[in-house]
């Protein structure tokens, strides 16, 4: 089966102007993962596709082209655009930036796609933001092969002891913290995160661990969307 044969379900991650009236659009699709396409003539005043080709709008697209950069044949909406506001909108932009940074072109990520869709719908229904982002990051790490076990010691394989202090080893998991380890958490907190019992402490722990675990994927250049939150929290 090739990309051209059938309609593809997708969400727009990002779009940028291309030439006078075209757009370059990055999609996250169910069938083909991330893809980039040229949408010709959609910025003109006569086209109504520019309102569809926006983030947070469920789409069905038909493409053509033999190279990695595809062309848009047609696009239809699969439902209303999600009305994200304020913090929920910033969270949506954060997920898009994260996906745009870490996804490889044309590799389908079924679990991650389902989680992305679920997260966006929850955002639109004003679900609590922090647990939603952490669970999204969790599925992202697992689906990209960077997952690790929250319930067992990575060195010995024994279950995490609630009373013990642990530290995170990149791409392996948790080990008992030596005296020199600067990032350390109580075993109980790790088990809370594993069971998704969210409270202020377990959320902070999950955030710190996710930050460390995402680092090899994101690299040294931090995600810009984080600034939207940092600046608001500071004020």
């Amino acid at each position, binding site marked *: 089966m090739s990309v051209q044969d059938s309609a593809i379900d997708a969400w727009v991650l990002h779009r940028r102007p291309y030439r*006078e009236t075209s757009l370059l659009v990055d999609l996250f699709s169910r069938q083909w993962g991330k893809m980039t396409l040229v949408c010709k003539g959609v910025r003109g005043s006569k086209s*109504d596709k520019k309102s569809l080709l926006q983030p947070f709008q469920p789409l069905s697209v038909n493409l053509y082209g033999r190279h990695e950069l595809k062309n848009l044949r047609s696009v239809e909406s699969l439902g209303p655009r999600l009305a994200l506001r*304020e913090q929920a909108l910033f969270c949506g932009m954060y997920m*898009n930036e994260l996906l745009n940074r870490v996804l490889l072109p044309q590799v389908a990520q079924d679990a991650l796609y389902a989680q992305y869709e679920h997260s966006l719908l929850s955002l639109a229904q004003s679900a609590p933001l922090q647990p939603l982002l952490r669970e999204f990051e969790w599925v992202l790490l697992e689906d990209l092969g960077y997952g690790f076990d929250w319930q067992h010691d990575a060195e010995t394989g024994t279950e995490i002891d609630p009373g013990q202090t642990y530290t995170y080893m990149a791409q392996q998991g948790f080990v008992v913290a030596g005296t020199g380890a600067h990032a350390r958490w109580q075993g109980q907190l790790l088990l809370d995160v594993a069971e998704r019992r969210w409270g202020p402490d377990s959320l902070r722990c999950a955030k710190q661990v996710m930050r460390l675990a995402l680092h090899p994927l994101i690299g040294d250049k931090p995600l810009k*969307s984080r600034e*939207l939150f940092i600046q608001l929290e500071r004020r």
Partner: protein
Amino acid sequence: MQFSPLISALIDAFKVLPGVGNKTAQRMAFHLLERNREGALNLSKVLHDAMEHVRHCQRCRTFTEDAVCDICASAKRADSGLLCIVESPQDVLAIEQTAEYHGRYFVLMGHLSPIDGIGPAEIGLDTLAEQLAEGGINEVILATNPTVEGEATAHYIAQLCREHGMTASRIAHGVPVGGELEYIDGNTLTHAFQGRRQL
């Protein structure tokens, strides 16, 4: 065929213009050489002056060769207590042509777009926060584009305004005047319904 070095340089130079490729650049270069040398000399002088002297207005960030642009310098506009926030200098022009608005502007020169590396600092929101803190503004009108990035920018600035105890309003989105409902895309129509007003 190879052109002489000066002609090649001229053609290459024209290619900095948006939408101008090799062929158009050649046509421009030969047109000026054959038919309008005077105009071309004038162009080069004006181009040079503008590039040397046009800067950003210290208050609203739009383009001007003075320290503060005419709109910001006007006392009448400052008295209105209105501040309209737009993405580009072209937007200022479009609003000015309606002759409907008599307040001041703040030009972001872009919108929040984290994927492209554009955060709050890049669009001058620290300058805006200082101006909000100075006072003299009663209402902030958010006239950013109805795109996801424009909405995010509007929400972010609205939060800033709330912290300074100011009201922020968003311009309405909806059906173009003289248009027909049947040809309007669903998202715009949804907005139009959500923003309906009692008559």
